[in-house]
């Protein structure tokens, strides 16, 4: 029965940590439920049995009982030692990645995740990992604090600007699992989700090679732009289908007249798009906030590719 309840209130068990965490979760729940039941029954029983019968009721003077006080000090003490020890063991596992773990660099941005693989391949909001192999994430934030959380893995770690933090996991098989940001980071915090794809190791190697080759090919600018749109996290805020997001949609943006918060208007030509990419704070569209980071680190070719891509979204 406990197992059934756990399946209802806990995410699926998909990493090597999950079963142990769930075991401790269940232990605390059961122990707490028993004690809570005892307290509740005592309260209800006393309330009925010792209800006031007359205003002149005389009650006994019971000030203290050493045996009772010792019992309800020592029993909880033993219980918390068990809970501490159990949690400690699980935590140490979570903080000790095996030395053969596959390492992936993670960069958190407002509001998207970038994953960089050892061979240079980069993905955004899609983390591919070899199933059943230990994977170590070396994480850093480009702006404020974010937190990397995969409920199915019972893994969570804050991601800080200016230093690395680490998390690791080993999946129990293939599957798709959602990643949440669990440190409040602003407007798009709740949309800063991503996916883990645990695939067979051979499939993973093939995928990695394929991605590598893809990035080496000479691509038409607009196609390169579409890749950048995904990789650089533009997709987190700017939709392609006209749906509202944190930033204006790209649909029909090119050569459209834009209205700005400073009262001016302008046609969204190539120069406007370039400025909006490298210096987004210069002009803010009405109805939006000045929250986009600068993408001045993109090369001229990359900016051009993005503009060519935006041109095509009609």
């Amino acid at each position, binding site marked *: 029965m406990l197992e059934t309840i756990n399946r209802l*209130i806990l*995410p699926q068990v998909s990493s090597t*940590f999950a079963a142990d*965490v769930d075991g401790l979760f269940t232990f*605390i729940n059961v122990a*707490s439920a028993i*004690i809570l039941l005892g*307290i509740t029954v*005592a*309260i209800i029983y*006393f309330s009925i049995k*010792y*209800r*006031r019968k007359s*205003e002149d*009721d*005389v*009650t*006994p*003077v*019971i*000030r*203290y*009982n050493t045996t*009772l006080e010792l019992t*309800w*000090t020592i029993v*909880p*003490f033993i219980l*918390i030692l068990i*809970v*501490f020890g159990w*949690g400690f063991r*699980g*935590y140490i*596992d*979570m*903080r000790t990645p095996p030395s053969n773990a596959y390492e992936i660099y993670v960069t958190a941005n407002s509001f998207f995740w970038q994953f960089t693989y050892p061979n240079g391949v980069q993905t955004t909001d899609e983390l591919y990992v070899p199933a059943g192999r230990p994977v170590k994430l070396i994480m850093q934030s480009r*702006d*404020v*604090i974010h*937190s990397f*959380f995969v*409920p199915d893995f*019972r893994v969570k*770690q*804050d991601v*800080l*600007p*200016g*230093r690395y933090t680490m998390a690791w996991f080993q999946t129990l098989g293939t599957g798709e699992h*959602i990643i949440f940001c*669990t*440190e*409040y980071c*602003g407007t*798009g*915090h*709740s949309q800063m*989700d991503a996916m883990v794809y645990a695939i067979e190791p051979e499939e993973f190697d093939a995928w990695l090679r394929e991605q590598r080759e893809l990035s080496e090919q000479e691509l038409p600018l607009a196609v390169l732009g579409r890749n950048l749109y995904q990789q650089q996290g533009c997709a987190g805020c700017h939709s392609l289908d006209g749906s509202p997001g944190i930033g204006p949609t790209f649909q029909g943006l090119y050569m459209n007249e834009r209205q700005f918060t400073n009262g001016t208007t302008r046609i969204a030509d190539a120069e406007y798009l370039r400025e909006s990419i490298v210096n987004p704070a210069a002009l803010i569209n009405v109805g939006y906030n000045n929250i986009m980071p600068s993408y001045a680190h993109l090369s001229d070719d990359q900016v051009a590719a993005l503009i060519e891509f935006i041109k095509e979204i009609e």
Partner: protein
Amino acid sequence: MAATAKDLNIREFPVEENPKHHYLNAETGLKSWLFTVDHKRIGLMYLASIILFFFVGGVLALALRLELWEPARTFMDADTYNRVFTLHGAVMVFLFIIPSIPAALGNFFLPMMLGAKDVAFPKLNLLSFWIYSFGALFTLYSIAHGGVDTGWTFYTPYSTSTGTAVISMTLGVFIMGFSSILTGINFIVTVHKMRAPGQTWGKLPLFIWSLYATAIIQVLATPVLAITLLLLIMERTLGVGIFDPALGGDPVLYQHFFWFYSHPAVYIMIVPAFGIISEVISTFSKKTIFGYWLIALSSLAIAFIGFLVWGHHMFVSGQSELATVIFSFLTFFVGIPTGIKILNWVATMYKGSIDMKTPMIYALMFLFLFSIGGFTGIMLGALSVNVHLHDTYYVVAHFHYVMMGGTVFAFLAGIHYWWPKMTGKMYNEFWAKVASVVLFIGFNVTFLPQFIMGSQGMPRRYYSYIEQFQTLHQTSTVGSWVLGVGFIIVGIYLTISLFSKANKASSNPWGARALEWMSSSPPAHHNFNYTPVVLHNPYDFHKPISEFRLGIDGSGHGEETESKVELSSDKA
């Protein structure tokens, strides 16, 4: 004992019923309130203020719950939502719950329970209230200027980079901190120096013990918050690099500073509640409190251990693993004194004469809800489980069970317990009971689903969510409406009781033994027109009530009698 009493000219002072003159009509006019040094009036002004802010915070909460009806937008955008949850947290924490029990009920009853005319520094007490109001104005200013979207925790570097009114908000909190410190100092000195003759530490009401423990935390912890917020303001305005890594700072340092105050602050919020529960359970069981010293000292133990566990808010923050393990270990030790209290309260009911009046109902609801808050706290203290549950709705549910199921329900118990004393009026018992049941149901419907959502991985502070969580979110929202209805009922019957003429309260409607009940309802301008003398423990229900109304003739200020009264070694 009677012989001793005779030697010192101690006699019984009858309590005046339906007094013509009392603190409410001793002076009139707005000035008589704004410039009063009467601790009772200051307590009432605090009470009015915190009820106002509880209302504001509550409306914000209802708005949040309503927005979460749909997975995406229901009626407000993400930026508005972020401001609303920040304000809900900041208003509830800094403007409502921290001053709630100590500054409102504590101010009113601490001097009375000590048999004193006022707190040790009445003018300082008034200054505290003004400082609180001044700080609150800053908060209102920041709401008017676009609000704040950082969460009530103001974590850096988000709080140093967001464009919202962080400075005025943190300045407001900074200012209100001084109010908290001054109240704390006032209470500590009052408890040490102003106790009635014969009132040894072992005869202090447990509400006093809890306020004393709270005051110590207020005085020691609040300055750290002040320093932290000043550093934050300096970083924002002057670019001093304390927390921002771009300037050479460390954002995790901010979290250490912040929780060094804000964890003890959790005990500022809950420990006074323990005091109310002790008073209420003993009075309505008409029975000596079980384990007086354990309850009294466990408050101090919690206050002390509370200073050593701040790092349990930061298990996944990137603090060192060693620190994390130590903080987890120490955290569990808060559970022991807390558990001792709960079991002592339950044991007090054993063989009692239990009168299920509204304050008692709230106290028993407190025991149930706060226990759940405590057990889920143990869950969150367990390291490996915390990694999964941290920053999810599980944490949200946990602290609402502690802060609302705990402190707010205890506050309601206290309000209903002392309402006849404060106002001289009795509320409608039937409607009070109805409201308590509505609130209990509403509370659980609101927050139980949040435990489940959190266990499933629903992160907190999310404007939108994945559809899997919608049923639970909607259940929670429905619960918030029930809660709202409950509070409306409370507001209505309490207001009616104030204006109704037929429901005058007697001086001691519950048959309690502590000193505040030996004054008239409402109390006299200076509480007692004599110097009260204490012979018994305030929970000695087996002693005749006449032995709790003893005193020495005098102006009531005790000047001429102080020196000759030596009752502190009494063995009752």
